[in-house]
């Protein structure tokens, strides 16, 4: 009993310290009501895509933002998670929980192996080796003709017992639950002793060694956790899209995740989610806006998108969450960072 009360107290403290994150998460819970009354069911689809990419970006942020490990290959884990659905169904396993289970185990193992080899390097070598692993997996799936090769394979949505994913609202809330759980888990992790040590390693690895700790072990565990989170996002992505192809783990997606994090704010919990919202909304609306103003240039929306991103990164120190913190005069999104309390 008291353990439960204790846990609820911890959740309460964490929510208070991360208000932007939980505002966004609960905003997503209410969004279907809005889209229903505004008669914009298409936007539910956009919201799901935002939640899935946001979740993956939150996972990557654990190593990129908190751990200072610039992994340029995290799309590989999204891809592995997605192929867990396709390949399971290929062998007749249609249970969605099983897909999630496979995804967690496979991405955990892949994260362990890639992490073990890549984390021995640092800086530009680490970036290159993580990219190389992702490219290797990309071309592996391109060459696997049995699983559709280049063209990929269409999949059925996983069967989650009473949660029928062909009901769009149930799919929406399954994805939302995953987002909420990932948010909760990361909220605990980054404030915990482990999370604090990971951030200290980013700050000064040699001082952590001087305290008798071996940084590699912490980095490995962080890497595996982040791989698993990306894998879960990928598994749900496949069910949402009803289709998997190597494209899902194209290197540009790894880059997209990094841009989303930097846009939203490195080493904050709300940042990746906020970054995903702004990134995908711009991606959806810029072509439309541009099409209305100058139809001939609608295809070239990237010309506006790129400079916009660069401006936020250059002038909004700490990304969008940094801007929010400065406007509201708090350090709500960076509460777990150092600073006078």
């Amino acid at each position, binding site marked *: 009993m008291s353990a439960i009360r204790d846990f609820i107290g*911890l959740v309460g403290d964490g929510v208070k310290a991360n208000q932007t994150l939980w505002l966004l998460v609960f905003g997503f819970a209410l969004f279907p009501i809005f889209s229903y009354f505004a008669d914009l069911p298409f936007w539910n689809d956009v919201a799901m895509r935002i939640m899935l990419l946001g979740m993956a970006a939150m996972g990557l942020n654990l190593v990129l933002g908190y751990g200072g490990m610039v992994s340029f290959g995290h799309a590989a884990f999204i891809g592995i998670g997605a192929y867990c659905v396709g390949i399971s169904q290929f062998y007749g396993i249609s249970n969605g929980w099983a897909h999630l289970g496979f995804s967690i185990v496979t991405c955990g193992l892949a994260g362990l192996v890639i992490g073990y080899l890549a984390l021995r390097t640092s800086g530009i070598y680490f970036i290159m080796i993580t990219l190389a692993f992702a490219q290797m997996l990309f071309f592996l799936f391109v060459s696997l003709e049995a699983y559709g090769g280049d063209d990929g394979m269409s999949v059925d949505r996983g069967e989650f017992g009473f949660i029928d994913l062909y009901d769009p609202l149930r799919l929406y809330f399954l994805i939302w639950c995953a987002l909420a759980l990932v948010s909760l888990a990361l909220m605990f992790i980054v*404030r*915990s*002793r*482990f999370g604090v040590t990971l951030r200290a390693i980013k700050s000064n690895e040699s001082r952590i060694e001087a*305290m*008798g*700790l071996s940084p590699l072990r912490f980095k490995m565990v962080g890497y595996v956790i982040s791989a698993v989170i990306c894998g879960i996002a990928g598994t749900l992505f496949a069910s949402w899209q009803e289709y998997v192809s190597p494209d899902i783990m194209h290197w540009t997606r790894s880059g997209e995740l990094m841009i989303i994090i930097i846009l939203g704010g490195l080493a904050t919990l709300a940042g990746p989610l906020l970054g995903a919202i702004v990134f995908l909304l711009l991606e959806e609306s810029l072509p439309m806006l541009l099409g209305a103003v100058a139809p001939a240039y609608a295809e070239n929306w990237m010309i506006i998108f790129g400079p916009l991103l660069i401006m936020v990164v250059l002038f909004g120190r700490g990304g969008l969450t940094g801007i929010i913190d400065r406007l509201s005069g708090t350090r709500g999104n960076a509460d777990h960072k150092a600073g006078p309390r």
Partner: protein
Amino acid sequence: MSRAVLELQGLNKSFGALHATRDLSFCVNAGEIHALIGPNGAGKTTLIQQIYGALKPDTGHVLLNGKDITSLPVPGRVRAGIGRSFQISNVLMDFTVLENGIIAEQARLGQSFRFLRPAFDDPDLIAGARKILARVGLNDRADQRVGDLAHGERRMLELALALATAPQLLLLDEPMAGAGPEESQRMSQIIETLRGKLAILLIEHDMDAVFRLADRITVLVEGAVIASGTADEISNSAAVQTAYLGSE
């Protein structure tokens, strides 16, 4: 007969053509403050690195309490009882003083693989961190970001972090370098309070501090020991006079 905490046996280390450590053997005894002096580039930091495990000697052995630790990596040596402060301050700059203490405390307890409770709010860790900071009198600066501390305070914090692991051998690489006279004096006072409690290998260019603090002194020139003895023996040694003290 005092017991040797650290014993170096025939260490050699070269960087290409530069022979930075030459056939080096000496002991640091339990509870003594042992100063290592020598001109710039004599190889003092290089030697410390080999004792600490950040550099591997080409030949020779490092023994801690009689156990060969030559192939042990840094974290293992720290757990075996070696603490260190660096020539250039090495603390967690992005955190507050108290947070530095908390991270040191959880590392000391060997309890850093925990995922649920917020570390910086943990009353036990805070109490432990306060004890760590109290040794160098930094508790009134607890909420200060380390990046905002004065240089001397950062050195104090680094000493506190090095002491947090309760080392039997403390390696101090120029702890007073760059500090003002007052800060240097506070640092000497704190080192003085450690006398007899643990072995200290102290590298320092400030000769007044060295002769005041050191029980024994070893003089290093071009990677080799040219003299080793008590403060009196060293200041009266002709070899040291010509090779080092005289030339300053």
